[in-house]
């Protein structure tokens, strides 16, 4: 069989937007760079011992703020713990908090934004005012309540922080989503699909959503970063992770106190955080572009 026929058969098989997007992504360098970065970070979150053999809990005040030595690439922190090892072991909780809370916030924001934008009228009014109510709840209050309620059930703070951020930070994404859905739903192609007898779910998910989601993706990628960092602020306020749970946020909140004496323990977890956010922002941009056939 010649190349040409293979080409022809391959070409005539129906492809979908997702498939095309994937084809496109596969050829996108930025996509690969960012996903390799993201994969590394995920791997680090799941299997920290692949990256370091040093015990993050092996700390001695005698080594306080010592410089890099041996296995301790980034030196030691205030407690005399290995900064590198703690950064690697902290990835798990940070990524968990960041990803899950963003996922939760994204889901809620998507649902509220889409429903409010699509149905409009009374439903829109109710949901929009609901957003206002949620906006009125101070994040600290949510964190305090959840961390107190959940600490009974043996939570080391990860669930509480995740839930707090997930439940309280979706409002801007909901509003952004709502306005782009409103814009998309008045398009002719939506009317065309309705004319064919498409169900509301179909209109929403096949037609409106793909065309309205781009700004939402931008907001989400940033929310991931903001939420990972927010964990640091919550830890600083004492409603973050508990006990000896490790995370970049805890590290940053601790290290900032001694920043003027030793900057390395602050810089490294921050750098990892920045790399994570960068990976997801680039990933978000690449995916968004891939799903825009006009850019192809």
């Amino acid at each position, binding site marked *: 069989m010649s190349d040409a026929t293979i080409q022809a058969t391959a070409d*005539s098989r129906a492809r979908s*937007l997702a498939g095309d997007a994937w084809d496109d992504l596969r050829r996108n360098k930025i996509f690969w760079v960012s996903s390799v970065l993201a994969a590394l970070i995920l791997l680090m979150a799941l299997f920290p011992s692949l990256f370091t053999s040093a015990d993050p809990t092996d700390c001695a005040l005698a080594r306080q703020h010592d410089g890099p030595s041996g296995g301790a690439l980034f030196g030691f922190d205030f407690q005399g713990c290995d900064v590198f090892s703690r950064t690697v072991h902290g990835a798990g909780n940070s990524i968990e908090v960041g990803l899950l809370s963003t996922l939760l916030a994204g889901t809620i924001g998507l649902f509220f934004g889409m429903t409010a934008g699509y149905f409009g009228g009374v439903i829109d009014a109710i949901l929009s005012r609901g957003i206002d109510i949620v906006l009125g709840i101070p994040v600290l209050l949510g964190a305090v309540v959840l961390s107190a309620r959940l600490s009974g059930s043996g939570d080391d703070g990860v669930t509480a922080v995740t839930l707090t951020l997930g439940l309280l930070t979706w409002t801007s994404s909901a509003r952004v989503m709502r306005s782009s859905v409103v814009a998309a739903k008045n398009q002719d192609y939506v009317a065309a699909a309705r*004319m064919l007898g498409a169900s509301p779910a179909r209109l929403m998910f096949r037609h409106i959503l793909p065309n309205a989601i781009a700004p939402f993706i931008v907001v989400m990628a940033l929310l991931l970063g903001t939420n990972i960092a927010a964990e640091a602020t919550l830890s600083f306020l004492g409603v973050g992770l508990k006990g000896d749970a490790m995370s970049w946020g805890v590290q940053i909140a601790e290290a900032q106190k001694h920043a003027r004496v030793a900057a390395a323990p602050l810089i490294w977890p921050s750098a990892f955080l920045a790399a994570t956010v960068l990976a997801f922002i680039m990933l978000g941009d690449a995916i968004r572009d891939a799903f825009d056939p006009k850019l192809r």
Partner: protein
Amino acid sequence: MTDVVLETRDLVKHFKGEIRAVDGVDLQLRRGETLGVVGESGCGKSTLAKLLVGLEKPTSGAISVRGQDMTRLKGGELRRARRNIQMVMQDPYTSLNPRMTVGDIIGEPFEIHSEVVPKGKRQQAVQDLLDTVGLNPDHINRYPHQFSGGQRQRIGIARALALRPEIIVCDEPVSALDVSIQAQVINLLERLQDDFGLSYIFIAHDLSVVRHISDRVAVMYLGKIVEQGHDVAIYNQPTHPYTQALLSAVPVPDPRLRGHRKQIVLEGDVPSPANPPSGCRFRTRCWKAQHVCAEQEPLLQIRERSPHPSACHFAEIGGVLRGR
């Protein structure tokens, strides 16, 4: 009459309570027939089309498709009924989802009405449709922006055809196309009509195209039909002043006639549909207007000097100069 597939009675659509986009339209469409609709831009043609296919809810009046009152149907019944009446939208580009491949766009009707074509045969069906409308079946994986205007228009037609409806409402399907593609599309529509016994409502600005394709023509002005009749009657013996003005303005593709045509130039602006003139709506721009026109609304009916229905108190066959 059994062969009437579509009928409206006193169809009215008001936007926001005041804009009278469609204001009392009665029309009938028979099986295998093409009804051309012409009129000034903004007179309510697209709104009428949307009402017919159920994209807008009428403020009042009835639409029946094969005796079934569309305005009363709900949910699943309505969706099934909709299969029978489809539309080709005015703007081919905006009516195609930019994030779907052409295959998905044309295949969507099959997915919605999954009983029409079994799953395994859908791709074939889509390719057949592409072939029918004269597009390369290999192009199913392309996106709308990769096609030319005429091709996009044909994608819209293929989608409308997918469910084998009896009626297709075409809202200016050829206005953005060059003449040769326009010719292709019209040929296609006519062939499909012959093959499948389709009925068309054909909305267009280009009167020569309307004349070519239509069996009957309705002329709209400001939400109302002002004149209706067979194509020959309308084109050769228009009795409503607006129709006469409209026809006089048609450019003729023959440079030799330049400057030899008598054009009726309509003075004044189109009145706002939010605040239409009393009585006859055309009277503000009509050279024949009299007192009675402001007081009494002329009905669309056969008149003394008009062998076909015309909504003018002074309807008469005028000597409009026609080319060729």
